[in-house]
């Protein structure tokens, strides 16, 4: 008799596909939150498998801070065209122009927290009842408490102390008008799992994840890319370094690491030897001990 068990990557894949199909079956108008980062690319890849030979039945929703890596936007547009899915863009710049939010002031100002309003507005205006995210429980301690199906009240808020219990594989997506859900199909994946799977499936990802030469400045212990939005501070110097990014977010706050890993094989090896968490290079999480928890309660990704 051949073996009748799955290896861990196959089991994670099967679990994620199950959750994506539950989303489709239980909700009227679900979308995939697409940032152009590897996790949302992975979720999109899994959705393709879940509904094959049908097309992915979800639109991709991108919350655009306006501070993008040009490579990410190019990648997003190509993918949308290839899959034949609808793209919905929620623009933080529009939210600022409409007076829905105001730019942060001060030295470490970012548009990170502003995304919450834009995201919730986009969910409301597009009548989205479930937004599928690439959040993983290993990323951060508040995310470690997330359910696969996570309820948001009519203010878009998360109440971590009062979550629906999730037993076996039985998912309860019932909700009232105005409320919505977030679904996290890759909750149980770690960074290492994601990279191993991307390598196994040969999933294409933005070139930013591979080591490349770039102009950067050293700030908060990581290499921040030079862009039109970056204001140099006193004493900071632009240098040319061979770097790659472990996560992709707002270009003004996403730090790269020095690396020679320019293939998926080398990235997998490098990640396996890493001694720092991937969000260690994200200044949005360094603001306080509870930075992520506070943002998530308000409706963040």
């Amino acid at each position, binding site marked *: 008799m051949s*073996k*009748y*068990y*799955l*290896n*861990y*990557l*196959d*089991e*994670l*894949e*099967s679990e994620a*596909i*199950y959750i994506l*199909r*539950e989303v489709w*079956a239980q909700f009227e108008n679900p979308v995939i939150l697409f940032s152009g980062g590897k996790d949302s690319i992975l979720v999109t890849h899994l959705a*393709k*498998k*879940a*509904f*094959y*030979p*049908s*097309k992915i039945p979800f639109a991709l929703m991108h919350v655009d801070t306006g501070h993008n890596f040009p490579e990410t936007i190019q990648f997003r547009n190509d993918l949308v065209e290839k899959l034949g899915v609808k793209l919905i863009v929620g623009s933080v710049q529009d939210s600022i122009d409409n007076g829905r939010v105001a730019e942060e002031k001060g030295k470490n100002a970012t548009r990170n927290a502003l995304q919450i309003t834009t995201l919730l507005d986009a969910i409301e205006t597009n009548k989205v009842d479930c937004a599928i995210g690439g959040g993983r*429980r*290993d990323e951060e*301690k*508040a995310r*470690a*408490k997330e359910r696969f199906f996570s309820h948001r009240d009519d203010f878009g808020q998360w109440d*971590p*102390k009062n*979550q*629906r*219990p*999730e*037993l*076996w*594989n*039985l998912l*309860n997506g*019932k*909700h009232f008008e105005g409320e919505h859900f977030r679904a996290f199909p890759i*909750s*149980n994946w*770690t960074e*290492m*799992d994601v990279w*191993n799977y991307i*390598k*196994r499936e040969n999933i294409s990802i933005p070139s930013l994840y591979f080591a490349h030469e770039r102009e950067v400045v050293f700030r908060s212990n990581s290499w921040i890319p030079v862009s039109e939005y970056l204001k140099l501070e006193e004493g900071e110097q632009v240098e040319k370094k061979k770097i790659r990014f472990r996560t992709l977010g707002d270009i003004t706050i996403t730090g790269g690491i020095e690396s020679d890993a320019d293939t998926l094989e080398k990235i*997998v090896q490098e990640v*396996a030897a890493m*001694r*720092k*968490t991937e969000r*260690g290079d994200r200044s949005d999480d360094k603001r306080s*001990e*509870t930075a992520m928890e506070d943002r998530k309660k308000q409706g963040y990704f």
Partner: protein
Amino acid sequence: MEINNNQLLRFTTAGSVDDGKSTLIGRLLFDSKSIFEDQLESVSNTSAKKGHDGVDLALFTDGLKDEREQGITIDVAYRYFTTPKRKFIIADTPGHIQYTRNMVTGASTANAAVILIDARHGVIEQTKRHSFIASLLNIPHLIVCINKMDLVDFSEEVYNNIVTQFEEFSSKLLMKDVRFIPISALLGDNVVNRSKNTEWYQAGTLLSTLETLHISSDINKIDARFPVQTVLRPQSEENRDYRGYAGRVASGIYRVGDEVAVLPSGFQSKIKSINAGEQEVKEAYAPMSISMTLEDDIDVSRGDMIVRKNNQPEMEQEFDVMLCWLANEAAKPRAKYTIIHTSHEERAIIKEVVYKMDINTFERDKSDPQLAMNDIARVKIRTTRRMMLDTYRENRNTGSIILIDENTNETVAAGMVV
């Protein structure tokens, strides 16, 4: 870790603040080198601020703001680590009686439960409660860690007495595989590294036990059950007639050509093709997510179950379950609930509370028909239509249900078919 055929093992740990649960998890993560530098730095700083000598391992499992302030676990938290042999998911659940619902949640998908006993105190009520829940939820493997062995001079006698105590009370429970390990989570004895202080103990450390438990047969591979989640009907020209039934195999094995029946209708057909993603495969088994097509054009939709012609579940409209009440609000007599079983949804009432279980003494109480938060009771349920059921003992995936309150949409109860 490179790609390999390693399996995934899910285990749950239940315990309270003082029995060393957080320290044990911290120790497992730390000694298996799953802690990153920035996490270690942050925990070292906090340990120093609190005036601890060295690193307080328990801080690695710190969660939400309120949990840190009160030093307790409120909700299930999931942790991950990988060794060259396996990937592990820990469902870290609080142990207090008011958190029974979280323990049940963590236990529902676990291959193994790790139960901690403080060597100085032996078996206490909480140990019995945790063991009862592990047995009720039919967790295939139970690992009893007798912790704080350093505080009883690593005494074999103390250890043996606790093993005897445990075996005495647990003889009333149904457990397949129970192991005992003397450990010190604080000092690391027998957690990842073998202890020099317990030469009288011959079996494996906690980690090596977790790495070698035989879990391939934890899922029922005999009774083929395939609940249909959704029907795939592509709009494209070349797939005009394609109807794929998508779902996750709950148990058993399916092969192309198998003679199957679709329940509840009972219509019969043969499996024409099986797909795992884009890949066409000849066979599929639990827990694979697949889609299948049938030879005949019959009506199949979400909530139906495709099974083998000659191996079918019971079709019942009235049945008994062991119910764990999860909601703050007590159960309302004769109230209607939504019942979810696999992908099948109906309405249900709780017809009768047969008895309630005292989870500390394992005694049955037939005098109290009220169901309040954290109560566990045997009840009779009646549903609007027939459900396709197996007993929970035989099949975790097709023997489990939840109830949803139609007024609040909350999940209010979890049940196991008896």
